[in-house]
């Protein structure tokens, strides 16, 4: 019986530890960082093709993509700390709510005047979302030791360099 109690408490401790890990938040932050790197290129393409209107629309699309990733990750992180059932409901309703909010934003932007260009907005939204995800898959480890992002390679320091420091 003692062994059984020990096993149960061991499992609980394990579950508790893994709720402290937040791989999705790390990945979303990394996606946001990479979005910052590519943002000037998309804004430039929007500016060249559609002028200031295109640049503003591309920038808005980038903000929406990053916000979508961050909010999605925050929903998962919060729901996992409650329960697995909460996770299921939160992800599905979060998806619905985020799509609804995107739809409302689209209607508002379209109706707000001539400064919004739909084509650069649409191109930036799709290409950034898919491109960032494809890029991120190269940097995700998804192993037991590193469940989220892959660890950065450690630079080898030679004794001479160490002495120089």
């Amino acid at each position, binding site marked *: 019986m003692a062994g059984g109690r020990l096993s149960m408490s061991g*499992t609980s401790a*394990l*579950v508790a530890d*893994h*709720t402290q*890990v937040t*791989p*999705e938040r790390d*990945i*979303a932050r990394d996606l946001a960082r990479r979005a910052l790197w590519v943002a000037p290129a998309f804004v430039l393409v929007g500016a060249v093709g559609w002028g200031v209107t295109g640049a503003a629309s591309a920038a808005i699309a980038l903000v929406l993509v990053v916000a*979508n*990733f961050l909010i*999605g*990750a925050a929903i*998962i992180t919060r729901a*996992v700390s409650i329960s*697995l059932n909460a*996770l*299921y409901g939160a*992800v*599905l309703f979060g*998806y*619905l709510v985020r*799509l609804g909010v*995107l*739809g409302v934003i*689209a*209607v508002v932007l*379209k109706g707000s005047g001539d400064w919004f260009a*739909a*084509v650069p*907005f*649409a191109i930036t*939204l*799709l290409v950034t*979302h*898919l491109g960032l*995800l494809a890029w*991120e*898959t190269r940097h*995700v*480890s*998804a*192993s*037991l030791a590193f*469940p*989220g992002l892959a660890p950065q390679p450690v630079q080898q320091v030679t004794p001479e360099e160490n002495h120089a420091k």
Partner: protein
Amino acid sequence: MLNVLAQTAAGEMVEGLKAIGAGLGYGLAAIGPGIGIGTVVGNAISAMARQPESAGMARTTMFLGIAFTEALALIGFVVFILLLP
């Protein structure tokens, strides 16, 4: 005069139908990814319940799976915003 009114009404009707089509398309495009996300999350929860020690790995795969599936809905969103009058 009646001809002008009829043309105006026809134009407004086309705009209205475009808006209805855009909304319907967006809604229909969201169904497939919804089913896909349900499958992804359901299987991830199953994995986490069976092997709590690999929960972090399952969550990583789940997050990326959800994001990739959402891209389908974003295609519907893009069509919606392009069709919106």
